[in-house]
Every structure is written in C-alpha cells, then in structure tokens.
C-alpha cells in the first residue's frame, strides 16, 4: 500500500505495546431519564448500560451479541463519545479518553464507526468522494490530498473512483453505500473500527461481499474491530472473542470457540439454541426461552436473566452474579458458575475451581 500521503496524516503510534488492551471499558453506565419535566419528571430511568466492563485487545475482533434493548448500540455510542456516560471511563491504549493525554479530537482520529443504516449515515448533499475527504480536511489535509486519499480508499473498498467518486448516496445500492461508509471510516487511519450491525440491512449475497471486504481491510490496515450484531452466525464468522450482553450487563465473555462450543451462561446457551437448525430433519421442537426480554426500566433484582431462566433458584433473586472466570478462557456472570454462591449447581469449594483453572 503506497503511503504517499502519510506525511500529511501519519499513522498513529502504538503506545503500550501488544499486551496492553487497545480499548478498556471500566464500570461504564448509561441511564436515560424518562420523558417529563418539572413536577411530572419521572424518577425512573432506563438502565441501558449498567456497570459494563471489558477489554478489546490489539488486532482482535470483539463481537457483541444480544437482543434489542440489551444495550449493545448504547455501548457503541458511548465508546464513540456520541453519548456522555452516566458513570465509568473508557481507556484507549492506556490513556483515558477525553483526558489531558488524549483529547477528544485525537481520540476521534483513532476510533471510527460504521452504522447499520447506510443511507441515513451519509450526507445526501455530498458526493461520496467529498464525504470521504471531509474528515481528513477537518484534520488539516489539503483538499487535493484529501481527495486523493478518498480515491485511494474507494479503490480499497472495491468502488472504482472514476466511476463512483462523483456520485451521490441515492445513486448507489445499499451494499455500495455501506462500502462508502467503510471507506469514510478509514479516512483518518483509525486503529479501531466500531461496526454497529454493519450488514443487517443488506441482502445475503451483498452481506457476504461486505463481510469478506471487512476481513480483508482488517488485515491490510492492521485494524481492530468491535463488531456488534444480533446475528449469531455472522458474529461467529467475524469475531475472535465474543461478549454476550443481557439487559445492560455482560452475561458471558470469551473466545469465540468457547462461547459457541461450551456456553456457560444459560442465556448464551438459549441464544445459540434459538438459531434455526438449517436442517429440516432436526427442527427445533421447543423454544429455548419463553417471552420477550424484560423492560430495562425495571430490571429483575439479582440476576437479570432469572425471570426467563430454567435454572433460576431463590438465591438468583437475592444475589447479583459477578463475572466468574472459567476454564477455557471465558467468564460468565451466573451463580451456577460461582463457587459457594448457594445455587445448587454451583461448584462447592474454591479449591476445586482453582484446580480446574490451573
């Protein structure tokens, strides 16, 4: 890849070395106040994200899965600073985002986002080459260089610059628009891309094209991805590690093989078992879960999943499970995995758990 424009927009340095997480989310919380003013003001809040913590390692794709209302999109907007958190902090390569060491403008160069709705996220009045060149110009690139960079990126996402550069968003198909969004996200040479349901609005044959493109771009530009999707098959294809969210909290997190092969949280197991079988001879006969996810305004006490969980016991209402590390490099927030929690299925003593881990 020729980097003749590097003088203007240099690649960003790796600060903490490969072992330091690229992104660390600590106690991240976002409560949305419900509508109403003055005396009518409601004290209820939507607990969209509640004390969320995770690391995203350098070079990996971390998948976030969960149902609507679980807080996955709020999480992405918090990480992008499109929303201000109620509490918690975000650390990027060792530096607190928005702090003295990493002001917002510098952070925004490092983290970019691709949204689900490819049409709504493009300015209808900008030709696509201008849309891609916009941010580099804001960051000080001359217009000529920014346009050259835009053409380079259009080429990289498989759109011939001479043919497509001057077109406007409405003149493109959904798949082509999503390619433009990806090119625009890459324009500032970011190190992390947040992909929020990037293929959910696309047809299957186009979805495959865009997923292949994302895999190629990640290797070519040395990117890390935070890949948010409700589609478990797509996340399994893309992710190195997977975070399962339920009602604003982490239910389970770990390597993709561990999550899909040996799910430890009953919610993860139910999500996986809800996938259509793709085999008419082995159709599902019973739904793994009943009902819809509860309302995040008033989440259940203790474990938030207990109202839909087949293994719930009295202790699940009283005690909120912490993330417990399990064998095989993953962690689940379920009392059945927490030694001595009081749940009948929990491991009895800590010693045993330690031996399993060793």
């Amino acid at each position, binding site marked *: 890849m020729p980097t003749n424009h590097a003088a203007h927009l240099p690649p960003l340095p790796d600060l903490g070395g490969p072992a330091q997480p690229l992104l660390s989310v600590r106690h991240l919380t976002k409560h949305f106040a419900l509508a109403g003013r003055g005396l009518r003001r409601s004290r209820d809040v939507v607990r969209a994200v509640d004390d969320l913590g995770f690391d995203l390692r350098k070079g990996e794709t971390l998948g976030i899965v969960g149902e*609507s209302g679980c807080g996955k999109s709020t999480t992405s907007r918090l990480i992008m600073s499109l929303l201000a958190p109620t509490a918690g902090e975000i650390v990027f390569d060792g530096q607190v985002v928005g702090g003295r060491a990493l002001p917002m403008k510098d952070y925004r160069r490092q983290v970019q986002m691709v949204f689900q709705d490819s049409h709504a996220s493009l300015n209808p009045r900008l030709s696509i080459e201008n849309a891609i060149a916009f941010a580099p110009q804001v960051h000080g690139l001359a217009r000529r260089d920014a346009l050259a960079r835009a053409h380079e990126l259009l080429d990289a996402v498989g759109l011939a610059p001479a043919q497509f550069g001057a077109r406007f968003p409405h003149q493109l198909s959904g798949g082509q628009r999503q390619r433009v969004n990806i090119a625009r996200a890459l324009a500032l040479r970011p190190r992390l891309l947040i992909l929020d349901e990037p293929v959910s609005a696309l*047809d*299957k*044959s186009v979805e495959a094209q865009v997923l*292949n493109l994302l895999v190629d771009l990640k290797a070519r530009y040395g990117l890390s991805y935070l890949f948010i999707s409700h589609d478990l098959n797509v996340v*399994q294809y893309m992710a190195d590690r997977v975070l399962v969210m339920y009602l604003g909290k982490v239910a389970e997190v770990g390597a993709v093989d561990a999550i899909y092969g040996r799910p430890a949280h009953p919610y993860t197991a139910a999500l996986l078992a809800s996938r*259509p*079988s793709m085999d008419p001879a082995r159709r599902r006969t019973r739904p793994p879960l009943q009902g819809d996810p509860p309302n995040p305004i008033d989440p259940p006490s203790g474990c938030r999943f207990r109202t839909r969980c087949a293994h719930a016991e009295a202790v699940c209402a009283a005690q909120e499970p912490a993330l417990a590390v399990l064998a095989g490099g993953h962690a689940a927030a379920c009392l059945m995995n927490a030694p001595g929690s009081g749940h009948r299925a929990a491991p009895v003593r800590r010693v045993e758990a330690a031996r399993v881990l060793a």
Partner: protein
Amino acid sequence: MTSAPDTPLVHVRDLRVAFESREPGVATVAAVNGVDFDLAPRETLCILGESGSGKSVTLRALMRLNPARTTRMSGTVRVAGQDIASASEAQMTAVRGRSVAMIFQEPMTALDPVFSIGTQIAETVRRHEGIDRAAARRRALQLLELVQVPSAARRLDAYPHELSGGLRQRAMIAMALSCRPRLLLADEPTTALDATVQIQVLLLLRELQREMGMGLIFVTHDLGVASEVADRIAVMYAGRFVEEAGVSDFLRQPMHPYAQGLLGATVHAGSRGRPLVTIAGAPPRLDRLPAGCAFAARCDRVMPACLDAMPALAAAGADRSARCLLVTPPRTALAA
C-alpha cells in the same frame, strides 16, 4: 367450499404483476413475471428471495392487496376455489379474512394504534360471522390464548404500543386466524423479532398450521427460517421462480446457480476461517429486464444460449424444477 380434497388450495399460473407509474416518462416496473405454482391443503411453501425479487408482491397478489390504481395483474390465481383475478370487490372482502389471511413483518404498522387488540380481533370476527359483541370478545380471548399470549384476559384491553414485539406479532396472528382461514400468508413475520422470540413465533406458527389444517405460504429472505418451517422452497429472482424443490432436497443440493450462490453466501457455523462465496454484481432493474436469463449477467457459468431467451422452469428430477439451461438442457426442457 367448492374444491374437492385433491384439488390444490392455491393454483397460480403465469401470474404477472406490473406497477405503472402515473407520471409520464417513468417506466413500468415488472415485479412478477410469470409465476406458476400449486399449494396443497396443509402444505407450507417458503418463497425465498432478496429484496426486489417480487416475493411480497406475489403474496399480496393472492389476496389482491397490491394498490388497484397502479397495478396491472394478469394470469390465473385460484385460492380455495375462488378465482381471485376476476372476483368483484365484494367477493374479495368475503375471501379476505375468511379463506385467506395475511400476517406482516411489522405488527406495529399493521395493527391500529387507537384500538385495543381485543377490539380489533373482535371486530374481525363480528364482520365475518355477525355474532354479538360479547360473543366476539369471548372469541378474541380464546384466540389470544390460542396464540399463547400470557395473561390473555388482561391483554385484551392492551393497545399495540403497550405490548412487546413478540406479543404484538402473536396478536396479529390471532387476528389473522380469527375466521379460521384455509390459507395463511406470512410476509417475513419474524424478521423484526429477536432470536429467542423469533423461534417461539416460528414454532407457534408451525403448531397452529398443523392444528388448524391450514396451507401456509411464507415469504422470507432467511434460509434458516425457511429450513425451520417449509415443506417446499421456491427461490425467486427478478420476479420469477428460478428453482422449486422439497426443503431437504434443496438444502442438500441446490441446482440453480443463483440458489447455489445464495446458499454459499449464507453465513453458518462452518463458514469460519474461509472467505464467503459471493454473487458478483446486483439484480437487474425491473423496468428493463433482459430478454434472456435474468441472472445471466451475474452467473459465472453463463453460455451464449442463456442470453437469447428466458429458460423455462422445467422438471429437474423427482418433484423439483429449475429454470436454468445447465440443469435442464433445452431438449429436456422441450420434452417436459
């Protein structure tokens, strides 16, 4: 009903639907371009296709729901013995709901926001069966119980916005089933639902169909959903069926290159670590369809003969058919 037990519930021949624009100079869009199929009573056909393939328009044509002023429809459509193409509006009103009912992708827009769901279900029953208000309300309650709405008596008075997505979809199914239709049409009914709710609704539909002995035509873009409910699968492309087969045969060995591409492009558990199969390019514009095979421009095995004329949908083995010269060379196509 007039139909004998062995006559198909749905009989469609050479169905064509085009949308004409009232603005001068805007081309006519040929959405459905010659669809033939039969559906036996109690059978489930899944119509699989991408956006713009004509699958929803085909479904709406079976109830004549496409906008009358701009739609040009031709061909034979018989549903439960009634000729849909020539029926009067009054006859159609009797057919809709009683013989055929439809459920839609987005229950929030399909339900009326200013009436409680109990009122909406009862209204349908009263309209078709002429029973009194109290009896209709009792039927509405039974129907909500039938579709497994928890605490149904309380939910009768709920407005659509007070229900979760899964419950709204169940309420819409209850309304569709209120007159015990012989044919249920489902237009992507689970696409807007979460995974754990989607499987509940799919299993419910399968169960209700068996209990009530309905035929079901289910439109979806999701191969996994189709494999969960279908007896037969029809793949649609540019307004035509390009392949039709039993669901097991289809998943084991799709024959049409487009169907093969679609199967290859679908991400599944075994896809990891390999590039996905893609279909290059995009579907043709429906206002200027090519003379030959509509898929030829994207097909990697295209031959000169493909460009001359649209191949016929021809038998391609036991109880399956495909619209491709590779599968059925012209001579066999003529014999079929």
